[in-house]
């Protein structure tokens, strides 16, 4: 029963990882860019929600009304100011520039907010601890369930958006061949900026759940980036539903690992990631594949 509970909690935790990973996976699928500032931007959104709640008494859910458009704007600017220019310098420049950006964001947050850990849990009333009892041993936290549901809805929504809307089709076409889409009247730069804006909205949502379900500090971005990356790779990045599976695998591994030793939580997560990577390399299928086109193309 104990193990069953750990697995269930791991699956729910996986929902959070899928949330934080789907933006990373999406950006890799569309622009083939791995944004190393991904985690830092999620933490930035978390701080924004914290300030809105702490200073102005806004519930985190209301705060999202302000934070998500701001994140979209940040995404737009990120693409226009950093990623566009980086992409011209080859594959590695985006890695270097977004890493530099993450250092700037982390340390500015530290400068402004100090080393204290924060959480949005105090602003959630009873949601932060309410749960449903399945039986005497197993409880499902309402917030964890909400996180998981949000991940499913968000990923499903993104998938629908990509397959059913003109912008979604333009994004997929641009992912396929950024040079040729210009011939059919698509502005690849604008499409990429829109795609990054969308990705940053998902990062904002992930930041909100990060801050509601746990504590965070200015340097929490690095670990979030790693978890997102692991979930995306385990699931096969570029595939949005795969990201959900990847998140769940990661969450379950961590949850079971924590049962073994205090350090086991993180060790098990990294170990599963490396094992999946290893298995995939041995069987010849390399981890990262552009799957957006096949996953949603009917």
């Amino acid at each position, binding site marked *: 029963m104990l193990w069953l509970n750990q697995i269930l909690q791991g699956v729910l935790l996986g929902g959070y990882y899928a949330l934080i990973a789907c933006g990373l996976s999406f950006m*890799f699928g569309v622009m083939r*860019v*791995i944004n*190393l500032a991904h985690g830092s931007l999620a933490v930035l959104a978390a701080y924004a929600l914290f300030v809105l709640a702490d200073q102005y008494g806004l519930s985190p859910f209301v705060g999202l009304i302000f934070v998500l458009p701001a994140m979209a704007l940040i995404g737009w600017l990120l693409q226009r100011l*950093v990623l566009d*220019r*980086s992409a011209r*310098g080859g*594959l*590695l*420049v*985006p*890695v*270097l*520039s977004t*890493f*530099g*950006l*993450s*250092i*700037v964001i*982390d*340390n*500015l947050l*530290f*400068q402004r907010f100090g080393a204290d850990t924060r959480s949005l849990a105090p602003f959630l009333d009873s949601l932060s601890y309410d749960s449903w009892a399945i039986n005497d041993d197993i409880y499902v936290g309402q917030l964890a369930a909400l996180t998981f549901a949000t991940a499913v809805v968000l990923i499903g929504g993104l998938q629908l958006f990509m397959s059913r809307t003109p912008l979604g089709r333009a994004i997929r076409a641009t992912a396929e061949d950024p040079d040729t889409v210009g011939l059919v009247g698509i502005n690849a730069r604008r499409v990429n900026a829109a795609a990054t804006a969308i990705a940053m909205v998902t990062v904002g949502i992930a930041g909100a759940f990060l801050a509601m379900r746990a504590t965070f500090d200015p340097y929490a971005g*690095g670990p979030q*980036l*790693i978890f997102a*990356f*692991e979930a995306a*790779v385990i699931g096969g990045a570029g595939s949005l539903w795969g990201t959900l599976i990847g998140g769940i695998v990661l969450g379950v591994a961590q949850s079971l690992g924590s049962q073994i030793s205090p*350090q086991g939580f*993180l*060790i098990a997560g*990294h*170990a599963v*990631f*490396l094992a999946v*990577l*290893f298995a995939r*390399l041995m069987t010849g299928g*390399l*981890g*990262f594949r552009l799957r957006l086109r096949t996953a949603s193309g009917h």
Partner: protein
Amino acid sequence: MASEPHITVERWTRASVVAATLALAVAALLALGPLVLGANAIDKLTTLFIYVILAATWNALAGYGGLVSIGQQAFFGLGAYAAVRLADAGMSVYPALVLAALLVGLVAWPLALFMLRLRGGEFAIGMWVVAELAHLLVNLDGLVQGETGTSLIVLNAYAADARHAFNYWISLGSMVAILGILFVLLRGRAGTAIQAIRDNEDAAASVGVKVAATKRAVFIIAAFGTALAGALWLATAITFQPKTYFSVEWTAYMIFMVLVGGLGTFEGAILGAVIFFVIEALFGAAGVWYLVGLGATALVFALFLSRGLWGTFATRFDIHLLPVGYRLVIGRRAPAHPSDVAVPER
């Protein structure tokens, strides 16, 4: 140009002969350091030597090999950890530092087998995961006691002055050795091969470059050099706290040094290390703002000056002090604007 132009491939130029001689002379002079300099100056220079090792090895990996790793702190930390372990097992401390680095180089070999199959950003973060895992595993060791850490107590056997002098010499020697190895390697067949791989892996493979073996060699040498730097850092700091040694900040520093100095130029990495050393001395006390500045500078260089200071300077004035590349000279005398061909340094 009526007749056939006379074409020669040039490697050493007068400027580079002078520069290389000067570099050796400087190294020889530096060897006298502990005899003439004060304790503070010796410690500072020791730090600089370690920075040069970090910059040069990361540059070999990223600048020449095209393998941007965000996880080099894995090797830095493991180098220090292996040194602690060897010393605890009773090995004489200074040989232990070098052996530790060799052991880490050995560990890097199987690691290379599968990490190197990742491309670009996947390799970058994949290495970070490796570093995190290495950190966690080292924490499990009873000797290290988790984040509490441990110390290289055996160093207390040496009087303070002698210890500082030994640290200085071994760091200087290591730096010269690493730079020497990299220079010979990059000048030779492997250097041409690795740059061909960086520029186009498939094309390189098609003309017979052994892609996997060459990348592996660079990866292992970079791991060895970074581990040596970690072991040397331990000798200067004495205490080993996993959190400090496995911090991603080390990689941030390497990236800063190489980007500012000049990614993929031999001289640039050294210049970058010197610049970082000076900036740290001037602004290190500014704490958070200093780190913001480093990150912003790295960002700006990546976006607008990706050749770095030395790369830009060398291209503008066509000066190559340490001749790693090849130059084609057309005509009997060097023309006004000779073109670098075959292996242009970036």
